[in-house]
């Protein structure tokens, strides 16, 4: 039982199993930070554009499929802007009736200290300010941004070669770059007003759910590696998996992975193209809490070798730690969830517990 199966999911697994082994992930981290190779393999089968309607240049398919693919992307630590291109940028563009470009694309997540802003000009718009920690900006060819002009939100598409990029990396060595918009002139057609339902909050929850799925994949990778290691590593004349304390840790690693992954999978399996605030909150909060335990215990079982660069565990655990704070931290989403809970009566709370609450969009 692994959740909804699709041809696209099978294909992604094959591509990543073949072309995205840990040695490749390491090499990319040492280099440009991303894998053009893996991207081309995925793009060659239209996979980054699953969930984007065909009429807007996408591959069709559902958000559900794209989210389950994101889990595989997380499992293999694939260093590509998969989530950003389709689930985020493709969504923004299709919501305003624009067509996607079949290139690696990214979306500024919109941080509290971002200053990027649109100003109207005679011929169109001017873009000024800074967007921080934009995933994969240095390797993207297009940037699709949700920007305000002081009155309302707009979706703006800007080719990356027009932008000033200041490279940075997250804890996992993935590119998280600052973009400085120095008076970028955009014509009217590049900037479209966002409809209701497309705003910083809805973008954030979409990103949160996608990251939660990536984290589920990474947790699973930690599980498998840890179980395998415990069976292989011998001390005191026997595998360390024969020791009760280690067994208990294995049970916890697997149990927390199941628990931490379930809300994301349930939200993903739900279908439709909208992500509710509460669904995103539960998924991302749970992924974050469980990821901490899975990472910690995974390392505990591995002992010293797990702390090294040369061993593969860190490829997954650093991603878990990095993704915990992206598109809203555990604290952020837990607090929002908790506030909602505290504001309810018990009857409404029970409805929410069994997944029946209608949360406001």
């Amino acid at each position, binding site marked *: 039982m692994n959740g909804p199966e699709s041809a696209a999911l099978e294909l992604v697994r094959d591509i990543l199993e073949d072309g995205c082994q840990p040695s490749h992930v390491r090499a990319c981290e040492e280099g440009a930070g991303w894998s053009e190779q893996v991207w081309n393999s995925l793009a060659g089968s239209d996979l980054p554009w699953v969930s984007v309607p065909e009429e807007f240049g996408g591959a069709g398919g559902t958000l559900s499929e794209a989210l389950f693919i994101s889990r595989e992307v997380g499992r293999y630590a694939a260093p590509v802007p998969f989530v950003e291109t389709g689930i985020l940028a493709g969504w923004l563009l299709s919501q305003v009736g624009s067509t996607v470009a079949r290139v690696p694309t990214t979306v500024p997540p919109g941080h509290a200290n971002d200053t990027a802003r649109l100003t109207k000009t005679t011929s169109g718009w001017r873009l000024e300010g800074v967007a921080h920690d934009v995933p994969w900006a240095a390797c993207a060819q297009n940037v699709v941004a949700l920007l305000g002009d002081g009155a309302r939100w707009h979706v703006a598409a800007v080719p990356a070669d027009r932008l000033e990029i200041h490279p940075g990396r997250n804890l996992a060595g993935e590119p998280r770059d600052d973009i400085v918009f120095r008076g970028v002139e955009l014509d009217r057609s590049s900037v479209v007003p966002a409809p209701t339902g497309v705003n910083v909050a809805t973008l954030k929850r979409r990103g949160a759910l996608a990251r939660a799925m990536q984290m589920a994949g990474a947790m699973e990778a930690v599980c498998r590696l840890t179980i395998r290691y415990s069976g292989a590593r011998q001390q005191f004349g026997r595998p360390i998996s024969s020791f009760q304390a280690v067994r208990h840790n294995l*049970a916890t690693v697997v149990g927390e992975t199941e628990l931490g992954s379930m809300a994301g999978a349930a939200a993903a399996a739900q279908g439709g193209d909208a992500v509710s605030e509460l669904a995103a909150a539960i998924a991302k909060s749970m992924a974050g809490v469980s990821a901490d335990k899975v990472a910690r215990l995974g390392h505990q079982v591995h002992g010293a070798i797990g702390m090294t660069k040369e061993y593969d565990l860190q490829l997954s655990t650093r991603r878990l730690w990095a993704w915990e704070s992206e598109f809203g931290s555990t604290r952020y989403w837990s607090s929002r*969830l908790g506030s909602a809970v505290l*504001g309810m009566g018990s009857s409404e709370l029970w409805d929410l517990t069994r997944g029946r609450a209608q949360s406001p969009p």
Partner: protein
Amino acid sequence: MRLAPTVLSPQEEELRDEIREFLESEVRTGSFEPGLGIFADAAPEFSRRLARRGFAGMTVPAEYGGAARSIVERFVVMEELLAVGAPIGAHWTADRQIAPQILAFGSDYLRKRFLPGIAQGECYFCLGFSEPDSGSDLASVRTRAVEAAGGWNLTGRKVWVSRAHTAQFITVLCRTSDEVTDKHIGLSQMIVPLDSPGIEVLPIPMLDGSHHFNEVTFDNVFVPDNMVLGAAGDGWKLATSELTYERAGPDRYMSIFPLLAALVDEDRGASTIGAGEILGRLFGRLWSLRQLSLTIARLLDEGESPAVESALVKDLGTRFEQEFVEALRQLAGLPLRTGVGSPFESLLARSVLYAPSYTIRGGTTEILRGIAAKGILNEWA
């Protein structure tokens, strides 16, 4: 991932409306005080009323007077009962474990004798497993049944028997043969009426003085052959199948729901800094545990035997319940007394007292993790 999400069908949700209607009228008439999951009160009249509406012995086939429902359907009803802390104590054990066991392993005689009564909410069972020297090492039980004409003579002592004082029957795990190489062989499970001559039931008060547990002693109690569940020697197989069955149900994480309900209804904690974040984390866990438990119920309906998953979910659920109680205790920051104060304060006090038992009863955390790990290593290593 091993456990995929599942949703309830409209038909399954319809059942929820029915049980809610029943519970609403019970709550309106004030027929009970909210209890805490498996520590909820025993109320035979409530059990009978519940049964008359088809909510007891739900998975018992129609030919024995049951509602012939699926495990998922039973799940829906159970979680509604637990959400309001309904007094299910009297019939709980019979309903959850004994009925499925008798169906799976019982003779025609046992099925006809017990299933109708269980379905009517009138036949109450308790479990004779643990002994003073046998807890986690259940196969080491020393209660002995010696062959006699037409049956067995049972001698021994069982402890921690929940609700022996309100039940009519006890299932007893006992040794029937000493000629074994492995202690798991030669055990049997027998059904014994608690009013049999030679049986004594003594209370073992809980740390707050309440009466849940009992010691049950057997002094040459005659048990006829037709009251042996399965065959003689099947005892260990029955015990372990029983445990898989009941391990991951909603009672493993829903005990605390009445406490959470009281918290939000009384607006407690809203003004405590950081309460939102803590409650958000805990609520997310509750939500997710429910999903895992529901998926397991589905798997059981499909004929699967998810032993590893059940052990993991029980472990996660019971640890969650403890963490929940600890967190709320810290948020509340109040001196706690049972029986006084608001419903929230009173439930919190009781929860604090009982919380350590969640990870002990029905298989300790340590045993569960061992079982899960063994299965995981067999499969993945």
